[in-house]
């Protein structure tokens, strides 16, 4: 077991044969090596150090033992990131200690190491549990890699449409075989009818034969078109459905890891690539192989010597094609770069039109655009010139071979060693032979491209949801008590957004969550909703661990209104009904009224039946916020979480909504994140967060008296308001 070279620089549970040499002698009785991470710097020079985590201590090896510290003395491990380098540091009983420096190439490896250390020393996860999980991971990785014959997996995925695929291939091969008959009929026509006049009666038969071949060919072509279209759609739909379903299952952390563009490209572009391959190249590989075999045998049967001559230009063409592929990548990449630049300028000019115009940068953009167009033209001409250097030479080889065939074949016809019909049939088949040979070479390239695309798709399909419901999770009728126990959470493994948060909220209590930007407020509510799993600690509702509660049950009873809510591209009514699908029209209106959304909705000509556009773009930020709040209120949740509910509202509406919130949240567990502290005047308790920690808790007055961060935030807002009113007075209202 073990030996998993993970993340380019860390090995989990390496076998003893792979341990760095001095380590074996250093290990004590019962000490197990959990992970070995390799740095790629020693000081400011390239070099290698090993950082070894065992179940008892952390060791740094640089030829010999450089540093060691028992885990019991470590309070926390962390990473500090610079332009190119990172430093792993420890907080120990003896003070902070920088342990090792490495370049960012090893960041992932050390992120894993830091997480492991913190799991043990901060999270106090029992070692036996950690070991079990890690060994499971090592095993799963090993299995995944051994079975990663990507295309076989891809075919496995497409198994349900295998009969359709087979039928498409069979019909396509049959169609091409039928195409081989006319040259043979022409041979018979020339040799036995037109030149000898011995079998004139055969003329009609040959004509009928040609007609029959044409009819069969037309029928097969239609059938082939039908099957190909069906296959085309079936492949794409099956893959897209698989990937899309997986996306729905993924945890939010996966969405953070992949950019939305990258996920989008996997659903659209990579599936397209595989679709093209499966319906184009994959079919053609079989068809081409069959054609090469059939025509090859026919050519040899007609004339083995001429066949040898006909084959001569093929190695030249293969060589030319290989050179072309190698060099073409450079030329086409340059062309693509030039094109990207044009797209980027257009995109900037459109998306940032207001910026461009307000700074008067139109002439600069025009100039840049014109330059880019010229560069593109030059790149395109270079591609043309380059292609002219390769293909004419290859073409010449074919021309010479063709002339040789006619010359040698012509001599044989004149000598009576070969019939005229055979020569004509031979040349027809010869040209038919070249096409599948080159097509097969192209197919191999497509196969490589499809394998890359398939790999990217499997990367998504292989992801496992990080937020997992335990098998024994159950429905729970919530009372409204919430408890956070020692929550530690990091999005990237480096920076901890929450550092040991402990918070207890009584059922029906209203909490205000305040703190500077990036203090961890939003992260905390995401964890409360179980959208993420904390690396350490637990969240409990009414004393039950959130992992023990069915996600559907939790989502029914906990509602959240996000800071910049996004609406679905449907009507206002349906967006509000996300809160409860079976709500009556009266309830929808009631919820909208409570959220102070009703008035603006009724001013729209189509009122609640108005479509809001993609992401709610046809509404203003404040309107979107109010519709989202209405949806949350319609849910009638036991626990309500509001992330900056009034951020996008004007002062008057803010006042209205705050009043309404005060009424609506009475007796209901409510967590309100707010920058505008005036929104929090009715809460029972204010919790102040800073840098991932809770730094103060208490009632508004109490916190002001304490003179800490809350007082500073309060005074800063007050100062802002005073300045504004002073400006208003001096601005002429009094004069």
């Amino acid at each position: 077991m073990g030996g998993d070279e993970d993340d380019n620089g860390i090995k989990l549970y390496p076998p003893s044969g792979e341990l760095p040499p001095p380590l074996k002698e250093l290990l004590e009785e019962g000490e197990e090596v959990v992970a070995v991470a390799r740095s790629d710097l020693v000081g400011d020079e390239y070099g290698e150090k090993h950082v070894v985590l065992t179940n008892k201590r952390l060791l740094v090896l640089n030829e010999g033992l450089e540093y060691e510290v028992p885990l019991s003395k470590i309070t926390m491990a962390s990473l500090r990131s610079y332009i190119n380098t990172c430093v792993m540091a420890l907080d120990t009983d003896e003070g902070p200690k920088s342990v090792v420096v490495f370049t960012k190439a090893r960041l992932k490896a050390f992120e894993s190491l830091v997480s492991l250390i913190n799991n043990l020393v901060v999270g106090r996860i029992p070692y036996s549990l950690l070991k079990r999980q890690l060994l499971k991971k090592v095993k799963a990785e090993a299995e995944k890699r051994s079975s990663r014959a990507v295309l076989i997996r891809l075919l496995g995925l497409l198994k349900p449409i295998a009969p359709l695929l087979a039928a498409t291939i069979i019909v396509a091969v049959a169609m091409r075989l039928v195409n081989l008959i006319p040259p043979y009929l022409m041979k018979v026509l020339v040799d036995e009818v037109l030149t000898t006049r011995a079998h004139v009666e055969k003329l009609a038969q040959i004509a009928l034969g040609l007609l029959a071949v044409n009819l069969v060919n037309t029928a097969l072509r239609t059938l082939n078109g039908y099957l190909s279209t069906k296959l085309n759609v079936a492949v794409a739909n099956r893959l897209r459905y698989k990937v899309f379903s997986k996306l729905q299952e993924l945890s939010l952390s996966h969405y953070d890891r992949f950019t939305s563009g990258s996920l989008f490209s996997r659903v659209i572009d990579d599936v397209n690539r595989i679709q093209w391959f499966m319906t184009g190249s994959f079919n053609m590989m079989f068809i081409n192989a069959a054609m090469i075999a059939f025509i090859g045998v026919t050519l040899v049967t007609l004339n083995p010597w001429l066949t040898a001559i006909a084959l001569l230009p093929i190695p030249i063409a293969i060589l030319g094609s290989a050179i072309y592929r190698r060099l073409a990548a450079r030329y086409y990449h340059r062309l693509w770069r030039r094109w990207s630049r044009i797209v980027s300028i257009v995109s900037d000019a459109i998306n940032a039109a207001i910026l461009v115009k307000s700074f008067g940068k139109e002439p600069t953009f025009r100039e840049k655009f014109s330059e880019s167009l010229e560069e593109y033209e030059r790149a395109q001409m270079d591609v043309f010139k380059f292609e002219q250097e390769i293909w004419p030479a290859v073409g010449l080889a074919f021309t010479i071979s063709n002339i040789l065939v006619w010359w040698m074949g012509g001599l044989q016809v004149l000598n009576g060693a070969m019939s005229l019909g055979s020569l004509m049939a031979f040349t027809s088949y010869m040209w038919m032979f070249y096409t599948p040979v080159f097509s097969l070479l192209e197919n191999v390239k497509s196969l490589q491209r499809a394998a890359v695309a398939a790999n990217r798709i499997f990367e998504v399909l292989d992801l496992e949801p990080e937020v997992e419901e335990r098998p024994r999770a159950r429905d729970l009728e919530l009372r409204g008590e919430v408890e956070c126990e020692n929550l530690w959470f990091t999005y990237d493994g480096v920076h901890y957004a929450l550092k040991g948060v402990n918070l207890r909220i009584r059922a029906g209590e209203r909490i205000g969550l305040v703190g500077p930007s990036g203090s961890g407020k939003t992260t905390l509510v995401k964890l409360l909703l179980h959208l993420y799993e904390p690396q350490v600690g637990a969240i409990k509702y009414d004393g039950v661990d959130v992992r023990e509660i069915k996600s559907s049950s939790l989502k029914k009873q906990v509602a959240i209104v996000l800071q910049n809510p996004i609406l679905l591209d449907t009507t206002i009514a349906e967006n509000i009904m996300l809160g409860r699908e079976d709500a009556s029209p009266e309830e929808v209106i009631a919820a909208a009224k409570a959220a102070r959304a009703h008035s603006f909705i009724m001013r729209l000509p189509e009122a609640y039946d108005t479509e809001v556009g993609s992401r709610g773009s046809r509404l203003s930020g404040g309107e979107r916020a109010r519709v989202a709040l209405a949806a949350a209120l319609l849910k009638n949740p036991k626990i309500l979480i509001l992330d900056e509910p009034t951020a996008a509202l004007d002062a008057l509406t803010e006042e209205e909504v705050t009043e309404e919130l005060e009424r609506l949240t009475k007796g209901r567990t409510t967590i309100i994140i707010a920058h505008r502290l005036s929104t929090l005047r009715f809460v029972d308790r204010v919790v102040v967060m800073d840098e991932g920690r809770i730094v103060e808790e208490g009632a508004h007055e109490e916190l002001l008296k304490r003179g800490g961060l809350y007082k500073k935030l309060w005074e800063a807002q007050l100062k802002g308001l005073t300045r504004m009113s002073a400006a208003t007075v001096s601005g002429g209202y009094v004069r």
Partner: protein
Amino acid sequence: MCVENLQRELKILDPRRVHVLEARLDEVDVEIEGRVYCGVRPRRPFPYSHPEIIMFYKGEEELGMLRDYRRLDPRSRELLERVLRIIYFMPRVKKILGVRSAKGKYEWRVVTDKGPVTFYTWSRCIRLLRDGRLLIRDIDGRVYMVENPEKLDSKSRLYLSMMM
């Protein structure tokens, strides 16, 4: 925040206690629970999904909501519908004579229950309602309804499917 409580605040009106007295273009004079209001505008909060629900507005003030205006007495209903037909004027498409692309727009020639009309749309112009009806929005924001697309003649259906 119980929604049931909020429902009480909606001022749901008893149709037996609402009488429309007069209709003028987009306004009605209405007697609600014994009190007469002049210049009241009826509005449909759900013009497509629940056209039977009506809310009455006197300026910005909301006077109340009828769950189903069809339960009003016949005279009131007739007067109210006269106003609703103006406020929610919507031609019903009976036949599509042709759709052609012209300068980045699409020109529709249709026959509606209000007579023949030619209008222009952008490419994304059709909205499918839950109950299967279609709305075609032209570039001026006017909306035309296709009540039962399946019942249109085959040529009209072909034009519709081209644009959907």
